[in-house]
């Protein structure tokens, strides 16, 4: 409860939560909220600026941008949640095992993590997306892969500090087994930093997925993905710059909201602040 009131004391938390809520509503109720079929082309209405019928205008094929942005939220939310879950679970497992069992297993796992960390951010995602081909699943795997090392490191350092605490020793003395120690004592006590990172990662996962599609190695047109929409729109920037604004604002606000929430959560969980 105290954490929650501390979280809400940050003035930006509520607007950020509102944006995330809007994103979720858009993703879930896209079919109900959309005014047009997202992929229906209308050659009588191409590149129209925003108007009463097309709130964010139409694109180069006469498709309604507002409806496409709504459907794009579905893809972004799906990629964000699944990539963070996949990367998070894998990283947490690796970090827990490495930190808890130590010695050789720790050394081997951490060297693998070092290698993954040698790939700067988006490069690993680009490599995997290029190898696995275009589509939703490759993008999710690519984005998850680059988050594994950070999750593993956070978890491992938490485990190392928690493992040395007296209450863990006490629990062991009381006869608690490895699994119980890991789940009950180590994992639950390391939850804060993991949650902070997962929140920050949601924003960057959505951003990376959009960047991959923008570069042409992610989700390809005609799927209404925000990055892919912007990528196509750049060819018509001189005649119809408005095509960029809808998906651009959607990505920007989404990433901004998750960054604000991540920062606010960090302030709550970081004892120094």
């Amino acid at each position, binding site marked *: 409860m105290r954490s929650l009131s501390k979280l809400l004391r940050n003035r930006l938390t509520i607007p950020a939560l509102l944006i995330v809520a809007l994103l979720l509503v858009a993703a879930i109720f896209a079919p109900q909220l959309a005014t047009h079929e997202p992929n229906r082309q209308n050659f009588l209405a191409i590149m129209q600026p925003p108007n009463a019928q097309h709130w964010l205008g139409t694109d180069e094929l006469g498709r309604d941008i507002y409806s496409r942005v709504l459907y794009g939220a579905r893809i972004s939310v799906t990629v964000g949640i699944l990539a963070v879950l996949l990367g998070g679970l894998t990283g947490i497992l690796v970090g827990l095992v490495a930190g808890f069992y130590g010695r050789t297993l720790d050394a081997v796992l951490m*060297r*693998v993590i*070092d*290698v*993954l960390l*040698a*790939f*700067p*951010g*988006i*490069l690993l995602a*680009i*490599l*995997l997306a*290029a*190898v*696995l*081909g275009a589509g939703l699943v490759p993008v999710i795997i690519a984005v998850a892969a680059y988050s594994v090392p950070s999750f593993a490191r956070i978890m491992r350092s938490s485990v190392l500090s928690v493992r040395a605490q007296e209450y863990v020793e006490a629990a062991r003395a009381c006869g608690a087994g490895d699994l119980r120690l890991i789940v009950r004592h180590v994992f639950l006590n390391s939850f804060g930093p993991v949650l902070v990172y997962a929140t920050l990662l949601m*924003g960057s996962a959505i*951003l990376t997925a*959009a*960047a991959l599609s*923008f*570069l*042409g*190695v992610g989700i390809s047109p005609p799927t209404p993905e925000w*990055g892919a929409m*912007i*990528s196509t729109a*750049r060819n018509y*920037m*001189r005649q119809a*710059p408005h095509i*960029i604004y809808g998906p*651009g604002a959607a*990505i*920007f606000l989404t*990433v*901004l909201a998750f*960054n*604000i929430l991540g*920062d606010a959560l960090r302030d709550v969980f970081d004892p120094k602040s």
Partner: protein
Amino acid sequence: MLSYTVRRLFSAIFVILGVLTLVFFSMHLAPGDPIDMLLPPGVGGRASGELIEQLRARHGLDQPLHTQYLRYVGNALQFDLGQSIRTDRPVTAEVLRLYPATIELTLAALLVAALVGVPLGVLAAVHKNSLIDNLTTTVALLGVSLPHFLLGLLLMLVFALELGWLPPSGRGEPFTLDGLRHLIMPAATLGVATSAIVARLVRSTMLDVLKEDFVRSARAKGLAPRLVVIRHALRNALLPIVTVLGLEFGVLLSGAVIAESIFAWPGLGRYLILAINGKDFPAVQGAVVFIAGMFVLVNLAVDLLYAALDPRVQYN
């Protein structure tokens, strides 16, 4: 120090070997026959069995996997990254031809990040909790959240297409006015997010340093506030700032992929994307290995420099 250097060198070599291994196996364990990746696009279904066998032999794909792996690593360590399918030239030669453009762009972006980030961070720290601080923090937050590709397109829209002040794409001759005009937008696109990161770091580091006794002493002896901040506080906050700038160099190196592909900047990043779209897998492998290798070496250099500059760093 010497044993620390040797140990860090060994670990860097190990990491580079790991990078080679990961790239090799991600290419070979991916779904589909690697030979499909070696065939020019569109040829896939029509290639004769003989042609496929020839290609297989030429690229050593008829050998067992471990032989292929050892040969690949051996060649890479001798700077032989294979032959590009698209251009039929050695990948190493292409990469060496293109990397100066990427380095130029990355250094320029780093300069943008330092020139914008450091003053903003110092201002925010000196005027803590004031309007300036809030404004700086907000701008930094917006900067971190604005995607590179969106910023790049918006800059292009305003400064190239609408106002016509800057060329929309390409690279000019370095160290000339034309070169500078071509460089401004890509460097800003790449550098803005980093300047936001730098501003946040400078702010928090400066806040710590400003609390130190020596700063109070400097103030107590009547030094002008500006001198206290610049000569005493900023100089002592410089080490972490320089370290982060060094580490960000590596991040920018890979971030350049997006800026380069927006502004048709003829560097490694654009080469990588063209190679991916052309299914030129030796070129993809080569570019990825080269960028990751540079990233490792830059980080190694930053670590060693940091250890050399700060005697408090533990070598263990």
